[in-house]
């Protein structure tokens, strides 16, 4: 039978760092839209079941609007959807799974959705799901422990494939550390090595946001829609997995892309003022004339003259309005060019300006925070002087 394995939707993630409200809403909405995409895929590929291996919601106390949107999207899939709580949306008391407003919406809008909160086997038409839900915020014991009881397997129907649905960290991986993680409860541990793999046919894992195969039968699906800046090539989010499983066999797993937004990380160093043009070219290359589709993490180093610094500022301003988010690490130093210096300090006809400019230039090399203030003052002075040039000309 075919099953669509996904996880870490984290619906309701606030993306609070995106200051523009409209853009923020776009990024949030994309995650809901991706559900529809994977739903269409599941139907096309004739999957009989959709498994969400934890962290469906970003918070254990998601609000009504989030719940309604999610349930509606889930309902729109049109297939049974089996969900377990993850560490973000754990199943402890007072969490979303027990609240009246969730239960109501689920009943009405996603009747085919089942939330498994206990360590109990769940039988569907085509398979048996063995859930390892996180029932509290902090769980230090091995969530798969109950799967080692021999009696369990005796009670299961012999013909149906057995799929473990779990959320947590397998031995080699540590919990993902994210600047956005406020609530990084230590994910539960999953000790896969001790499981009776003969009795199990697929282990559908969640928590790690990149798609990854861990053992022949155990996979992380990764998040369906990218939700953070990439941390290296090995991390490949934005996918769902379609697993073909059978009782007693090895599963056949195919990847499909469901992510749409682009999250990129770039670096650029300014050796001279031309670097600004180079950066412009680079940015055009990556983003073309797209808007509202990309998020960029940009680290800038090096030094620029005053005018070049202004040009850089204008360039960044342009792109930040096109991008959904520009996360900037700006370590660029302002070092006036020879011409600029001549205009300021070498200008004998404006003795005060020249003297003040000379003093500011001297302060640039001090290396402490006064250098930063001096650089800003210098730029201010330069532009004030330039303004006159413009006026006089007219």
């Amino acid at each position, binding site marked *: 039978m075919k099953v669509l394995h996904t996880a870490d939707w984290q619906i309701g993630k606030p993306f*609070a760092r995106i*200051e523009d409200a409209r853009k923020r809403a776009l990024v949030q909405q994309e995650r809901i839209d991706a559900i529809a995409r994977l739903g269409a895929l599941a139907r096309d590929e004739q999957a009989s079941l959709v498994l969400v291996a934890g962290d469906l919601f970003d*918070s254990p106390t998601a609000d009504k609007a989030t719940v309604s949107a999610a349930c509606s999207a889930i309902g729109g899939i049109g297939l049974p959807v089996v969900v377990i709580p993850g560490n973000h949306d754990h199943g402890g008391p*007072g969490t979303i799974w027990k609240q009246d407003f969730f239960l109501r919406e689920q009943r009405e809008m996603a009747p085919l959705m089942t939330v498994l909160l206990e360590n109990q086997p769940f039988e569907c038409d085509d398979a048996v799901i063995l859930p390892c839900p996180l029932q509290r915020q902090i769980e230090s014991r091995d969530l798969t422990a109950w799967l080692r009881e021999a009696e369990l397997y005796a009670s299961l129907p012999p013909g149906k494939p057995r799929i473990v649905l779990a959320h947590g960290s397998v031995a080699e991986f540590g919990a993902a550390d994210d600047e956005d993680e*406020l609530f990084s409860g230590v994910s539960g541990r999953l000790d896969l090595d001790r499981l009776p793999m003969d009795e199990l046919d697929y282990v559908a894992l969640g928590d790690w946001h990149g798609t990854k195969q861990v053992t022949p039968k155990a996979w992380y699906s990764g998040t369906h829609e990218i939700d953070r800046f990439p941390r290296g090539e090995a991390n490949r989010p934005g996918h769902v997995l379609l697993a073909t499983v059978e009782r007693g066999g090895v599963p056949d797993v195919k990847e499909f892309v469901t992510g749409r937004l682009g999250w990129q990380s770039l670096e650029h160093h300014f050796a001279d003022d031309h670097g600004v043009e180079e950066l412009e070219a680079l940015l055009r290359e990556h983003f073309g004339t797209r808007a509202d589709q990309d998020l960029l993490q940009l680290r800038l180093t090096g030094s620029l003259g005053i005018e070049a610094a202004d040009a850089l500022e204008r360039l960044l301003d342009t792109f930040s309005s096109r991008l959904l988010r520009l996360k900037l690490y700006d370590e660029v130093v302002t070092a006036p060019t020879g011409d600029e210096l001549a205009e300021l300090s070498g200008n004998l006809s404006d003795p*005060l300006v020249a003297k003040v400019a000379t003093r500011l230039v001297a302060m640039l090399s001090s290396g402490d925070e006064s250098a930063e*203030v001096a650089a800003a003052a210098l730029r201010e002075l330069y532009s004030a002087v330039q303004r006159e040039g413009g006026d006089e000309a007219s």
Partner: protein
Amino acid sequence: MKLLKATVRNYRIHRDVTVEFDPERTLIGGQNESGKSTLVEALHHALFMKARKTGRERDKMSSDRYPGTPEVELRFSARGSDWHLVKSFNKGRKGAARLTQEGGRTWTDDEAEARLAELLQVEQQGRNEKEQWAHLWVWQGRSGEDPSADTQSEQQRLISRLQEGGGAVAMQSDTDVRVMDENARSYAEYYTQTGKLRAGSALQLAEDACQAASAGLEVAQRTLKDVEKAISEFEAAGRTIAQGERDLEGLRKQQKELQERLDTLGRLRHEEQDSLHTVEKAGEVYARCEEADRSINGLEKEIAELELRSAPGVQEEIVLSGVLGEAEQGLCEARKAADAARTLRRNASLQLELARARVTRWRAAEQVRELKAKVDEAGVLNASFKELRQKLGSLPELDEALLDRMTALQERHLKAQAALEGMAAEIELLKTDTDVEVSGERMVPGGRARITEPADLVLGDTVRVRIYPGGGNSLTVAREEVARSEEELRLLLDRFAVESVASATAQLRQRNELEVSAKRVQEQLQGIDDGTLHQQLASAEELLQRAESDAGRRAGMFTGSIEPLDLQEALQQLDTAEASFERAQEAEDDSQKIVEDMESRVAAAAGQLEELQERIAGSKQQLATKRDLLVWLVSQHGDKKTREEALLGNRKALHEAEAVLQRVRMELRKLQPELLEGDRERLARSMEQKRDAKSRAMEILGESRAQLRLDGSMDPVAACHEARALLDSAERRLRGVRLRADSLALLHELFSEEQRTLADRFSKPLAEKVTGYLQALFGPGTEARVTFDNGAFREIRLVRPSVSGAVEFDALSGGAREQVAAAVRLAIAELLAADYDGSLPLIFDDAFAYSDPERVQELQRMLDLGARKGLQIIVLSCNPSDYAGLGAREMVLDPQ
């Protein structure tokens, strides 16, 4: 430019006055109201006021005394030529001006005004003409004002001069000013004048936003924590409840066991009670038996003792009785003796009283005698006094005054007589052969006759000569006077029945003597008797009578008592009686003491005896009682043998009962009853606690459950994320704003500093020049400081060696201000003179009124320095002698 000569006509006080100026130093003296200031004004108006000007200033020029148009004629040198200027201030159209260049052309009216302005290098300004060359004209009363205000119009020229002098020093450009102003404006958006952050500035707002975001984050975090807390409380409560159930089960089981043991305990306790009872009873019986036996034995012993003790008592009794008897006897005798002593004493007392009474009597008698003597004396004196008075009565009542009058009258009379005699004529008969008669009186030869009135001299019968003594009327008057005075004297003498004045004198003398004697006698009398003498005598006699009767009565009590014959004897008797009395008193006291002694001894002996007798009686009684008791006890409890047997039996019973008790107690101990009680309490307590904890946990469970029932209107986790992001962006924004504010402040600071440095370059040379002048006046160490700011000079300050720090112009004393202002003007004039062929006039109208005379002397040096540097120094003063040291050309202004 120098002034050469000026003539002023019809200008207020001046009809026509001419002043010639020295090219270097001019001193114009004149009293107050001599028109010095008017002259100064006229010079200024000539140069700067339009001839056709109308208005108040022009009106003020007109003279009350002199009709005609005010006119000023001025010769001056400028631009290498001499000029002749005539201005006729005839209001409006009629005013005329004429300017002639010596050896050159002439300009009139407007052209003349224009040319003049050009020469003086000033702008023609109708309104502010008073400000023209204000730095060179020191008006009277205004010498102490800050001269920098007067240099406004010359700032540009000054700067140019200073620039040339200091060698191409750059001035701030327009760009500099613009950029600086822009920066100042931007800076002002963030900071106040004092450099503090402006409320409501962007920076303030950014900081506020950060605060708010921070607070918001705290709130979101708290909310989230609350949710987490509710969750963990819920879970904890659940665990507590489950555990509580288990614990309570265990406790219940323990309770059951405990109860069984408690039942056993109860039973054993009962048994213990019973056997205890038995033991007690047996003990009692035994004790009673023992008691009785003991009593009997004890009693027998006591009886034996008592008998032994009471033996000696009787003997003692006898002895004590004897002692008592003796003591009583002694007492009786003592009493008798005391009585006798008392009687003696009483007697002595009476004797004493008698003696006292006798003494009193004799004293009274003395008194009476004395008084009587006095009375007699008084009588004698009285008689004498009466005699004297009588004698006095027989004498005429003359006194000194009368005598004086008599004497005076007599004198008068004698005088009158003498006068008459003087006037009288005397006839001396030398020889005659007939009868000679004068006033009927025969005269004998050798006889004299005095004639005091017309008298007839009869010679015989035939010749009758009437002689009129000289003096005419006066003789008559004198004669009358004699008669009168004799009459008056006679009258007076008769009135007092005195023969003559001599006898009156004698009588008066007698009278005085008598009066003196009488007075003396009177005084003596008063000394003896002040009027009360008789009364005193009467009372003394009464006293004597009483004393006599009293003494007589007392003497009657004693037979054979000897009467004293006088006071001396009476006193002797008193002494004796007093001595006897004292002796008798002492004897009585002694005997009384003995009596008391005896009494106490008797009492003591009696007491002892009584005590002993009581004791004896007591013992007898005790013995009897005890014997009776013994008999009774033996009858009750039997004899010795019987008693012993009973004791033995009872002891055995007691031991048996005790053994039973012991056994039961051992069993009880095994049960550890004390601990059982503790166990019961402990278990009860535990169960209570567990129940309480469980119900508390259930409450918490309920509360948490309620708290955890969310309505989904907000997501605390998402809210936290958002709050944190908000704070981060607020902080980022704040950093940006702060950077801008800091950079503006830095620019502001740097511009201010650089501007100040630049300004110093200008102000220094001017300050140095002023310093040069001031040092001529105040000495080395003096320094002037000038501020150059915004293209203008202002804020002159003075540094003196004696004073620390720079003193502002306004803070100087009146005199110092005048001096410093003068120095500044000299410096500025010197600088400006370069544009005027190296010379400018500087006019000081009474400019040093507040300066000390010594200072004024030193001022000459400063003024002279100016002159040596090319300036034309013109000084006007009420006291030109003050400026003698200047070496100027002097002239005096006479009011015409």
